[in-house]
Each structure stands twice: as structure tokens, then as C-alpha cells.
């Protein structure tokens, strides 16, 4: 394996959880709900994925458990913000804090315990393609899934009727209600989808990225995913660019540090954030497009007329 391939593979691994969590949050926000609990749902996914992989001896069961726990955790948020119309920002923050605490408690028993890695699935024939085969067809299942997810979410949002309903609800819940579309149901489903994605993204960290449990191991990735959604102006293909750019610059700065350039490490650590912001701001120049893609009722609670 060449050096370039090896570096690119680490980029893919760094970008995959960001992509999955951001796509989930994108769908949630497109329905008009701002869930700031991504970090909390991710860390819950990380611990439950890790724990269930050990309980069952099967990392796939771990990934599945992470998805389920992610959904359950997001349901708590959905119940509070959609049914009880609590403030979405405050509730989301609470969810993050709760997730970090709860995962620490649960994870105490797993500190120092070796985890079970999700092994790569080698696609026959395709994996023999020079260079690309190694990169794209010798990956773990979550990577493959992240690409399918990107295609699926794009198709769902812009080609399917359910996606149209979702965007309508996010644009104006009052109009959607007047037309008889179910605002509540749509938002519940969107939040649960976001929870499932965050859970899986967390599992990627503990089952692929580093196969051990470390408290706080999401290390702010949930917040990055949230920021990516906004900077990508709620468009899936831009989330892909953002996630991979962030992953790439993150890996690159590690190598630059290793090579011993005399650049302050703090600056290098900040580089991924800076680069991502600059690029996404540049591609968001078209204000009209940004306006059209911004869910107009984002973060607003909905109460139907009686």
C-alpha cells in the first residue's frame, strides 16, 4: 500500500462519521427542527455500538444497537420539542450534555477493554482496480452505507414526494397544516432519522476509527456535523464536500506537524475549521440559492389552531 493510499484511507475514515451525522441532521433541519443534540446522540451511539459489539461478540449487532439507541435518544428530544413545544435550542443542548454524561457512566466499565473492529468488506473484482479499488472497495460497511445514504438523502429530498412534504413542512408549517399535511408526524420521523444517523456515526468512531472506548471520544464531531449542515446551506452534496474537506485538512495538518514545519500547532489544528469555512462560504456565494434552501421555519415550534 502506497503512502498516498494510506493517507487517503485515513481521510475517508475521518470524513465518514461527519458525513453520516451531518446528513441525518440535514434531514432533521429540512423539516424545520434544529436538533443541537447531535454530539450527545453520537456519543450514545459510540458507547452503545462498542458495548453491544462486546455483549454479542458481533460488531454488526453493535452498529445496529447504536442506530436503535440513537433513535430512542432522539425520540426524547422529539417528544419534548414537538409534542411539548419546548425550546429547541435549549433542549438540544440538554440532550448533548445528557448524552455525554450518560455515555461516561455506561462506558466506565469499558475503559481499557479492547473493542471489536468492523472488518472491511472486500468487494470481489472491483477491489482489484489499481488505486481506486483499495480506496473504495475495501472498506467497512459503514463507509459504503454513507455513500448510499448521500445518494438516498438527495433522491429523497428532491425527487420523492415524501421529501417534498418534508421540505414543505420545513418551509412553512402553517401552510403545510392548512393543506392537511401532518407537521407533527413529519417532524417526528425526521428527528428519528437524524437520531439513527448520529447513532451510526458514533458507532463508526468506536467500531472503526478507534476500537476502544474513550470518554468524550466524539470530541466535538457532532458540532462539526451541525456546522457543516449550515455551511453547506442544507444541500447534501455540499455536506459531502465539507465533510471530506474537513477530514482531508485534518489529516494533512497531522502530517505537516509530523514533518516538523515551524508552524504553531494551534494554527495547524485550527486549519480544518478555517479551510472548511472558507470553501463553503465561497460555494455559498449564490445568495438566492442559499435562501431557497434554508428551511424558513427552522427552530420554530408548531402549535395547531384549535
Amino acid at each position: 500500500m502506497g503512502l498516498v493510499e494510506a493517507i487517503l484511507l485515513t481521510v475517508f475514515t475521518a470524513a465518514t462519521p461527519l458525513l453520516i451525522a451531518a446528513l441525518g441532521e440535514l434531514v432533521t433541519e429540512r423539516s424545520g427542527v434544529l436538533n443541537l443534540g447531535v454530539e450527545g446522540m453520537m456519543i450514545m451511539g459510540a458507547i452503545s455500538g462498542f458495548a453491544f459489539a462486546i455483549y454479542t461478540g458481533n460488531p454488526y449487532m453493535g452498529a445496529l444497537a447504536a442506530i436503535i439507541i440513537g433513535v430512542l435518544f432522539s425520540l426524547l428530544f422529539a417528544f419534548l420539542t414537538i409534542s411539548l413545544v419546548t425550546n429547541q435550542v435549549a433542549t438540544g443542548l440538554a440532550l448533548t450534555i445528557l448524552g455525554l454524561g450518560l455515555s461516561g457512566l455506561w462506558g466506565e466499565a469499558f475503559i481499557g477493554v479492547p473493542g471489536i473492529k468492523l472488518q472491511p468488506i472486500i468487494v470481489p473484482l472491483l477491489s482489484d482496480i489499481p488505486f481506486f479499488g483499495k480506496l473504495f472497495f475495501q472498506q467497512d460497511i459503514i463507509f459504503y452505507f454513507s455513500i448510499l445514504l448521500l445518494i438516498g438523502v438527495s433522491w429523497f429530498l428532491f425527487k420523492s414526494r415524501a421529501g417534498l412534504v418534508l421540505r414543505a413542512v420545513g418551509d412553512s408549517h402553517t401552510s403545510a397544516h392548512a393543506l392537511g399535511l401532518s407537521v407533527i408526524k413529519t417532524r417526528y420521523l425526521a428527528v428519528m432519522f437524524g437520531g439513527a444517523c448520529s447513532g451510526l456515526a458514533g458507532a463508526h468512531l468506536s467500531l472503526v476509527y478507534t476500537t476502544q472506548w474513550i470518554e468524550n471520544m466524539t470530541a466535538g464531531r457532532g458540532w462539526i456535523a451541525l456546522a457543516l449542515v449550515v455551511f453547506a446551506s442544507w444541500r447534501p452534496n455540499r455536506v459531502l464536500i465539507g465533510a471530506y474537506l474537513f477530514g482531508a485538512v485534518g489529516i494533512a495538518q497531522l502530517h505537516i506537524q509530523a514533518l516538523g514545519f515551524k508552524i504553531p500547532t494551534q494554527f495547524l489544528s485550527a486549519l480544518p475549521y478555517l479551510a472548511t469555512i472558507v470553501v463553503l462560504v465561497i460555494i455559498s456565494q449564490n445568495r438566492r440559492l442559499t435562501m431557497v434552501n434554508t428551511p424558513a421555519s427552522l427552530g420554530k415550534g408548531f402549535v395547531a389552531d384549535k
Partner: protein
Amino acid sequence: MKSVVKNTPLQALDDMLTVSNITKLYGDFAANKNIDFNILPGEIHALLGENGAGKSTLVKMLYGSLQPSSGQILWKGEPVSINSPSFARKLGIGMVFQHFSLFDALNVSENIALSLSPDLTIAEVAAKAKELSTHYGLPLNPDALIGDLSVGERQRVEIVRCLMQDPELIILDEPTSVLTPQEAEKLFKTLDILKAEGRSILFISHRLDEVRRLCDRATILRFGEVSGACDPSKETSASIARMMVGNDVNIIKKGASVSSDDVLLEASQLSQPAITPFAIELNNINFKVHSGEILGIAGVAGNGQSELFDVISGEIIADKDDNIKIRGKDVGGLSINKRRKLGASFVPEERLGHGAISQFHLSDNMLLARHQSDVVAFQRMGRIGVVWREMVEKATKRVCEIMDVRKADIDPIAASLSGGNLQKFIIGRELDRQPSVLVINQPSWGVDAGAALHIRQSIVNLAKSGSAILVISQDLDEIFELSDRITVMFDGKLSEPLDTSKTNREEIGLLMAGVGINEGKHAA
């Protein structure tokens, strides 16, 4: 070909829809009380009443967005409980909303598809919408974004969306208020076709002339109760108005023009490229408004009126400073507040979201609009600029009293007011400053007769006091009632102003259709 007026008690079996003893309570307040009426197959039935008379509440119950507290609705003789709009649509009830229920970020065909059965693809919806819109003379572009459309165009989308569902009963809430006479004529033809097809129409309008011409029967609401029923063709506008408001309605007192030579508002060689792909380019606009004069700009929706308003008010900065002059000063490059400080006031077309923030209290909306132009009155402690709530609240109270704004609380949020009352508040907020220049877009759109009269009279009074007023309106009655001179906007250009006394509706109507506007570079 009018249906026979039925004054006999309800004969539910023949009815398309029967409303029997419906009451809607909000706490102790009855928005609707013991309402009885019926709609026959193939009739155009008018529902009349002032703002706040309970028309919207009633209609929402028929369309399933609200549930009655008591009473019964029969559909073709069968008792039904219409618990959702989709159920209403399933029955065959379609609705064209007054406050449009469209999605700004979605395009026309997506908006239409949302209220249809899921089996149709967007492409099929677009094709069918195109076909229906040509058939019924309601032109629209299926790919246009709603956010880029004018009020009039949005209404066409609403109507086509409703027709797509092949409804048997169509509820039209104020459908003609944004149309030109010619457009309204076309709509009436559409309605005639629909009626001939055996469909019923529930027609809500403030324009009594229209109702008299078009409708077979009318039910009139007042204070939430049925105050009368009639065959409108046998009544006069005055007699119907009396049933609506309980007393005689006056017409505005205009008096002789007090126009002088003093130019207070001027646009010269004003051109502006379109800022979005669907906006209209302004092309060499020139006009002068003198002290004491009302200049009316007529025109079909979407010919550049909103773009012109934005440039004059300063929401969009003009190319050159001297493109626009307020009281002789070049203001093309100045911000809205700087223009307001020169004594100009602006009332935009959309009340919620543009003229007022829906979730803010009236006093906050007052402060937002005038905190710069009324710095002395509304702020104290000099440069620190602490808001003087007491003064703001006083001004709010004063405006509400003068303009007769009807509201439930002392200082409610803007969204809780009916359209007409909010408009009275917004106009009153500006009139209260005694502006020397007033630019107002669609002053009485969707406002009932009483409120419209009040608004128009206030505008005329302001002109009499020496202000220059520019009125942009699609309502020709309003244009003729108010203006000293009339100009027409078509495809981003203005026609030569004509003296109101020397022109007529036909001439203006032709100009509105683009016949005779100079340098005829018409859109292909």
C-alpha cells in the same frame, strides 16, 4: 340563468352543502353563532361580512382546518364531520385561501403537487397544471419559485391548485381583490364554466358590484351570526352594505385637488436590472409627484410594481443618487431610514413579514419602523438611546384609536389582527408622522369596505394637507377613487401620466394589457 332563490327552510336533500346551527366558541367568545345556510349544486353563493364578522372561521370549518363546537354540516344530505382539509378535499371541497398557503421555497408545480394524490409525479402535475391554467386563462410558469411571484400570480397558483383536484364545491376567499378588471372578467368566465359544469362556488368578496353581478344568492354575516340572506341581483350595493355593517356606508370625500407645482417625490431615468431570475427589470422610469397630489400607478400584478416600490423606499439602492429625489434631495443611494428622516414614509404590500413582524406586539412594530425617524420622540437620555416605552405605547394607542384598529388586547401581537385591521395599523403608524411623501403599495388589498373607506379617506386627507402621495394598486376602483393623475406600469415601464378626469377605465385597462406603452419592446 339564475337559480331560483330559495327562502324555504333547508331542503337538505337537494343541497350540495348544508350548514345547520353551527357554533364555534373560543372560551366565551362566539366567533360563529347558530349559523344556518345552504349551497345548491351549480350556484355561486356569496358569503359577505366585514372583517371579523366570522367568515374566515366559518370557511375554515367547512374546509376542515377548524372543528365546530356544536352544530352539523351535511354534504349532499349526509352528515359529515370534516376533521381535516384532506378529508374536505376527498369529499370534493376545494379552497383558495386569502392568506395564501403556499411555500416560498418551492416551485409552482411542487406547491400544487403537495395537495394532490401522491400517485402523480411532479412532471405530470406540471403538465396538467399548465393545461388547466391555459384552459382557464390563468397563465403560470410551473418552474417559477413562489418566493419570486407577486401576490396576483400567487393567487393564480392557488386557484389552479384548487382546480387540479376537480372539486365540486370551490371556496374562493377574496379572489378578485388582486386582479385587474380584465383579469377579474376572465375569472368570472372561469367561474361561469365551473358553474355550468354543475360545481358550486362559495364566493367571499368585499366588492358588492361583483357579488351582485355574479352571485345567485348571498348569506351575510355580522358579529358571527347570519344577519341576512338575499338575491344580490335584486339588491343595491348600498342595501347589501347596510346588512353587513348595520348602517349606511359613506363614500370618500375627495374635494378639489390641491396639487401645487412643488415636486416632493421624483424619479428620473430610473433603471434597475432584475435581481432574481423571475424579477422584473425596471426600464427608464420617470415621474413627479407634487405637493398635495396623489399619483396612482395601476397595473397587473408582477409588472415591476414591487421592484419599483423597493427602489423608491430604499430596500434596493438605485444606480445613481439622482435617480430618485425626495423633497429635491438626491436619495438614490440612501438607506430606508435616511429617506424616512427626510419626511418620507413607505407602506409595503405584504403586511406580515414586511410591514410588520408577525410575532411582535404592535408597540414593538411601531418602534421598529420609527426608532430612527422619531428618535426624539421615542428615545431618551440622548446618545445612549434608551427606548421611551411610554411614548411608544402612547403613539400605538393613538394610532389604533384614530384608525379604529379592532383588537382583543391593548397591545396584541401583529399576527393576531385581521388583515384589514393590521393594514389600518400600519398605515396609521406612517400617517401619524405626517409624512410629506407617502409611498403606498396596495393600500386596501383584502380589506373590507368599511376599513378600505377609512384608509382611503386618510390618504386623501394627507394629500389635502400638502403631502405628495404615490399609490401603487391593482384595484382600479381604488386608483380612480384616489388619484389626481394615473400612470400604468407594464413590463417594467411606466406610461405617460393621465389626468384622472380625462381618462376612463377602458383606456387604463388597455394600457394595463400593454397596448400603447411606448418603445414597445414587449416580452416575447
